[in-house]
């Protein structure tokens, strides 16, 4: 995150010239920059995503703004939760912003996304406003689900929540991928789950059917190393979540680097769109 901000400010810093010199200056600075990103660990794949990527000024500003907004929104939600203005459950993704922003950057708005209950960031990146999200969290009629859903049940176009039952969203995501294949429009479905959910049996049932029927499903494990209070070493016999798909190729991605996530997502989406079947990404 810090490296990212430093890089962006380097690009932007050059642009802070007085207005009279801006036109002249436009010949003197670049509109984009090249970054080196971490190589991904691969499972059953010959090649992975590229190790360098180009970030344009426009994209840089966009990602920064989105990540900052998600951060501020989550921190505010935290505060409201502690004041008991938000009731029930409130699962926050501050610290994981690079995941939701990076994933969105790697796909099209016509692609589909489903996740579990740590969903506020995705709700925002998939197109809902902060106002609708906070209104829903505080149980107001102006909320995206009219106050009837709450933290865990927010929906938007091509965004299927927001699911409360750990692991249940994975077969749902495979089903959305089946609809993508059925409709033949070259769309993919990003199906997210956490390191805790990765041990659910229904996920392996979904892996089996997705691979059997070559569904355009990108299974994504967001590994923040803790399932509630239980660390991954205490919950999983194998913590190489990107390999847990067995016959499904996988890659482990640096989830703290928005550009790494973006490139890996583009790679995975291209893989699925070519009809090769599902693929698995672990964001660490």
């Amino acid at each position, binding site marked *: 995150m810090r490296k990212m901000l430093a890089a962006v400010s380097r690009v932007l810093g050059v642009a802070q010239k007085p207005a009279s010199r801006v036109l002249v200056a436009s010949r003197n600075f670049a509109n984009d920059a090249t970054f080196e990103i971490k190589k991904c660990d691969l499972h059953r794949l010959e090649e992975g995503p590229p190790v360098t990527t180009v970030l344009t000024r426009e994209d840089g500003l966009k990602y920064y703004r989105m990540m900052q907004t998600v951060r501020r929104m989550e921190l505010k939600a935290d505060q409201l939760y502690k004041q008991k203005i938000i009731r029930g459950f409130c699962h926050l993704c501050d610290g994981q912003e690079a995941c939701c922003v990076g994933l969105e950057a790697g796909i099209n708005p016509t692609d589909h996304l489903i996740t579990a209950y740590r969903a506020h960031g995705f709700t925002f990146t998939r197109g809902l406003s902060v106002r609708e999200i906070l209104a829903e969290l505080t149980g107001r009629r102006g*909320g995206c*689900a009219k106050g009837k859903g709450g933290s865990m049940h927010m929906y938007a176009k091509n965004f299927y929540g927001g699911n409360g039952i750990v692991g*249940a969203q994975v077969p*749902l995501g495979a*089903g959305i991928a*089946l609809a993508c294949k*059925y409709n033949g429009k070259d769309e993919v479905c990003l199906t997210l789950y956490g390191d805790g959910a990765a041990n659910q049996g229904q996920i392996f049932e979904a892996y089996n*059917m997705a691979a059997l029927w070559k569904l355009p499903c990108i299974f994504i494990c967001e590994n923040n190393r803790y399932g509630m209070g239980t660390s991954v070493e205490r919950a999983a016999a194998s913590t190489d979540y990107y390999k847990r798909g067995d016959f499904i190729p996988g890659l482990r991605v640096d989830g703290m680097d928005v550009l790494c996530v973006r490139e890996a997502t583009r790679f995975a989406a291209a893989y699925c769109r070519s009809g090769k079947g599902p693929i698995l990404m672990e964001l660490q």
Partner: protein
Amino acid sequence: MAAVSGLMRRPLEQVSGLLRRRFHRTTPAALQVTVRDAINQGMDEELERDEKVFLLGEEVAQYDGAYKVSRGLWKKYGDKRIIDTPISEMGFAGIAVGAAMAGLRPICEFMTFNFSMQAIDQVINSAAKTYYMSGGLQPVPIVFRGPNGASAGVAAQHSQCFAAWYGHCPGLKVVSPWNSEDAKGLIKSAIRDNNPVVVLENELMYGVPFELPSEAQSKDFLIPIGKAKIERQGTHITVVAHSRPVGHCLEAATVLSKEGIECEVINMRTIRPMDIETIEASVMKTNHLVTVEGGWPQFGVGAEVCARIMEGPAFNFLDAPAVRVTGADVPMPYAKILEDNSIPQVKDIIFAIKKTLNI
């Protein structure tokens, strides 16, 4: 008992005779159609009508259906629309729900509803509750269908009735057809409905032929979900049932008619939303009520009917407490004599009716 000797299997000629009939489009007179063929026709017509409808489940495609209900469909529609799944109920039910969320109209078959317990989280939490939780944004137009309740000699783990369990949940519609007309009309309505619908069929009824009236032979024949049917008019007592027991009630009514007792037999057709108005109107006429179901007594369908009658205007018209005839409160035993006595028989229904009428 002859009308309900449930295990008559019609030969192939019956089916091909049927196909010949449809193909030539002769004026349909009343036609003998088994419940199995009625469901098959209903699904076939809906698959043809709407590209988005598809069927998935274990053995539904190449095996023609575990109980042959989907016979011929894979051959006609192919791999894309009729999908064989591995034995992964939770997985494929979730996949079906996801496909419904993304705009398709899946029919998800459970080989029996006993196996739906493996997937019940997807049926309730992912399908039933979603439209409400999303504030009306995300409909789930899915049908879950399959045989429900007791069969013959399949013992405890394969004989449970789920009418009460699914009927409990807001967000679901639950239907329970008895005869061929019910089966065809209700499966078509279920597929066209934008809500999740659970269709509780009955394995012992699959092979039973019924006369399909001419209007039921039309491709747009629908039975509205939420409406009961009075199968037999009567004046002395109201007998309410769903699924296979409806046939037993009609038999009991025939026997009692010879003794001068006229029973009004109501076929519920829909468990949820329950058509209590039809039952109330009948009770207000006859002043007596007996409910009949195959499921266990505690928290069952009959219990709900009785509670609602008490809460409504019909209570003041009752001359005796309502009586429930239900399956025995035990896991279904295997031995035939025990199994026969664990489900409502015609003699149990007659006994309950006479007890209510104080005869």
